[in-house]
């Protein structure tokens, strides 16, 4: 996927803020591209443009698929529907047969370890379990693109690691072209194929660092990953 010549500005308390000025970016198919950068640099605006929530002033996005999935910071489940219903609603357009829809929901709930909670309402689950359900929903939807806005953020470390593992195994089963916005370098290194570092607004891609090693075998103590981490930090700090 290719983003080219993107322009977008906002007015914030009376003054004009240029978020993108002739911005271009390459998103390799079926790879996870993490986006790091200072806050306010346009990471979330990029997701909002790709999602269609925000219309750019100009620019083109080539190869944008029709169906997308989105992992938000919050799970965004319907509080009045069971976990199972939350996922099957998304499938109604794609799978007409109710029995096959059910099978698909069961499959994804099993993959995130929630099969026993299919009939629970979101408020009956813990925060981590709710985010698992939203990951199951994102993958159950047969989309070719996945947008991620810090979905592992609001959790403590061991929850985060187990959630990242659940995410990774789902993604390996069905690789979608993904944009992963985060401000956690280690998270980016565990999940992504490459890390794009953005400048302050107007955003530019300062560098793109490929993440070494097979996703499932990565460890944060690995010397290859620590070297990549050093590099990212030095770019972020402008040294």
């Amino acid at each position, binding site marked *: 996927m290719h983003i080219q010549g993107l322009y977008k500005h906002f007015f914030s308390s009376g003054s004009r803020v240029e978020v993108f000025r002739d911005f271009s970016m390459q998103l390799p198919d079926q790879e996870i591209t993490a986006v790091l950068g200072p806050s306010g640099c346009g990471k979330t605006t990029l997701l909002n443009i790709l*999602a269609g929530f925000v219309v750019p002033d100009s620019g083109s996005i080539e190869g944008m698929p029709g169906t997308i999935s989105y992992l*938000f910071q919050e799970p965004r489940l*319907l*509080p009045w529907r069971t976990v199972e219903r939350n996922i099957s*609603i998304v499938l109604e*357009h794609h799978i007409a047969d109710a029995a096959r829809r059910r099978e698909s929901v069961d499959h994804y709930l099993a993959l995130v*370890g929630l099969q*026993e909670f299919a009939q629970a309402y979101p408020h009956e689950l813990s925060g981590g379990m709710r985010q698992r359900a939203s990951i199951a929903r994102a993958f159950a939807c047969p989309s070719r693109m996945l947008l991620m806005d810090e979905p592992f953020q609001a959790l403590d470390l061991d929850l985060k690691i187990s959630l990242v593992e659940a995410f990774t195994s789902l993604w390996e089963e069905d690789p979608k072209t993904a944009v992963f916005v985060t401000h956690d370098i280690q998270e980016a290194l565990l999940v992504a194929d490459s890390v794009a570092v953005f400048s302050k607004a107007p955003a530019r891609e300062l560098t793109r660092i490929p993440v070494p090693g097979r996703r499932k075998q990565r460890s944060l103590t690995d010397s290859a990953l620590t070297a990549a981490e050093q590099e990212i930090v030095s770019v972020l700090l402008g040294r």
Partner: protein
Amino acid sequence: MTGFTLSARSRRFAVVLLSSAALIALWGIASLFVSDIILPSPRRVIGEFAAFLSRPQFYLALQATVRRGIEGFLLSLLIGGVLGIAAGGIPAVEALFRPLLSVVKATPVMSIILLAFIWFRSGTVPVFAGFLMAFPVVTQNVMIGVREVPNQLLEMARIYRFSFRQRFFHIILPSITPFLLSGARSALGLTWKVVVAAEVLTVPRHGIGSSMQFAQINLDTTQVLAWTLAAILLSAASELLFDLLAGLLQPYKRRRRLHAHSGAV
């Protein structure tokens, strides 16, 4: 030290019981000093009410009032609900109906009843007045409910391409349900009062208000109070009905115990 403790809920219930008893006792004491025409004793009023229960006349009146109340209420639910959804979703609709709603809300009940009596037959007046007084309450609540529909969920619905039908039944309707319920609850409470008032003024053949009016003409204060008791009980019964309905319509609000498994986080 006493050896037992009460839960907060039963303590509250005990207080309500005690204050009700105190109120009735006060009424009883006051009634000792004046004639029955001014204030009959609680025992006499309750006795009169008990006697109602074996009279077919009572059930005719009750039935007529309940029918009028329900007709007016359903009208205000339907029209108020549709208007509330439209006004909550479309600012122009809200601007269009705002003056009407303000005028209706500020108009004295009695003006509406008197005007309605010029326009309609006596049996229709309570329905019309009840509807007119209650529908702004429904509209107001539903309008706020529509505005409180979580934007985060609407964004999610856009991503996953919810159809209009899916958006309405899975997001908008469930999120306005609590507002609709509380609006409908106040609307029905108001409807009973307005219907009885309209019956008092227009005196249709049957009705709690009509019976109250006859009793008042005869200076039968005991009967006036016994009919008042009937109206109060009607109101309380409809509140109870709404409590039940709220539980039925919102099963997700019930607290359930899950056999939590430590495996999943």
